[in-house]
């Protein structure tokens, strides 16, 4: 594409399903996911890229989807919280750990925290406490004081074999 345009047809894969949609250039990826695709599992909690609730993994990298234009994600493979569990509905180990350690209360920030945690463990399978805290510092949680979130991630970091 070499001519400027107000909208564009994009093709993205979200949680394994490919979508082709016309999208306005000004549409943020988070709004594309929530409004155009109606995948409401990905949340937003601020308007400045601080809360991390909208975190998704784009081509293997965790990003805040409110800080990316949907048109920029053209061609991308996007993972959201809704694709974390196994196809049979059983939970991903990170989801399991979050439940087991009571790492969520209201559950609103959780989709973003889970994606940040998944990325953290993919890039650093055995993080120590400080690395865990730095790994999720782009995600705000107002319920847990982060204590059980850190513990849940620690429970996976300490395993000999971490499969994420």
């Amino acid at each position, binding site marked *: 594409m070499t001519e*400027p*345009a107000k909208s564009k047809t994009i093709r993205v894969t979200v949680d394994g399903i490919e979508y082709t949609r016309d999208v306005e250039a000004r549409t943020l990826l988070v*709004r594309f996911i929530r409004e155009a695709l109606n995948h409401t599992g990905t949340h937003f909690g601020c308007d400045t890229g601080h809360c991390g609730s909208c975190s998704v993994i784009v081509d293997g990298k965790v990003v805040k989807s409110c*800080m990316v234009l949907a048109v920029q994600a053209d061609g991308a493979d996007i993972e959201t919280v809704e694709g974390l569990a196994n196809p049979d509905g059983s939970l991903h180990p990170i989801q399991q750990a979050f439940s087991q350690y009571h790492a969520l209360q209201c559950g609103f920030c959780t989709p973003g925290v889970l994606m940040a945690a998944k990325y*953290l463990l993919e890039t650093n399978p055995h993080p120590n406490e400080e690395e865990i805290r730095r790994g999720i510092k782009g*995600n705000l949680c107002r319920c847990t004081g982060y204590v059980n979130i850190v513990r849940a991630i620690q429970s996976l970091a300490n395993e000999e074999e971490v499969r994420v």
Partner: protein
Amino acid sequence: MALLLRELEYVRPDSLEDAVRLLSELPDAGLLAGGQSLINVLKMRIGGYSTLIDISRLRELKAIEVGEKSLRVGAGVTYDELMHSMEVSLHRPTLVDVVGRIADPQVRNRGTLGGNCCYNDPTCHLPPILTAIGTVFEARGSHGTRMIPASEFFVSYYQTSLGPGEMLVALHVPKLKSRSGDGFVPLSVGGTDVLNIIAGAATVTLAEEGGIEEVVIVVTGASERPIRLESVEEGLKGTAGQPDDADRAFSLLDLALLDPPDDVHASAEYRRDMVPVFTRRALEQAMKNARRGIHD
């Protein structure tokens, strides 16, 4: 403020050449790289651009090349890519440390070196350290390429010396010399490295016997642009860099140089008080790193 931007046009050129051409041709066009600051500006609907030229996928901006005396780092290299660059960790390790502190993993996966520098927010990490280590900025416009030293690149709040139609394509980062070390110590709000109230940066080269041969000390957050503490540098040169040398040198600090802002994060007075604290900590870190170099 909302997640609702003004209507805008978008274009993603396939080459750097096209990007430069579009930038000079299109009225009111801006470059979109990682977008980790620009997208927020667009959300605020203050200023911003009516056309965005997406340069985030241009391979020409992604290269990290090792030259004889310096590294040429593409402006489109993300923080995360820089953190994982063997070349940079070998030749200017402090940059790896500094970008590793920026904001959070999500921001580091998108944000670019060029974006950080061109945004030139006084709370950003890179302007002070890049200034201290003598980075040269390579800009390209329709009239060709221009090299701009850091001391001229950062002009004022959110302003650089890039002209209309000109884009930053690469940073030329001097390789760390032997017996040298860098330091970077920010006072950041809440310790999260999203916003730096003050940031001190320093680079030191020691003489063989261990005294200070060359030193550059820079601070941001104390003025509209990164500023060098030249009087302190002069006071340190030739000394052994011991605490009382530093005491004497910092007593030469020209407070009149400082014109810090007064905002919700800190008063101007506090910022002024913090300048010697954080620049000195940066110096100490640089000295430590330089001495480690000697022992290696």
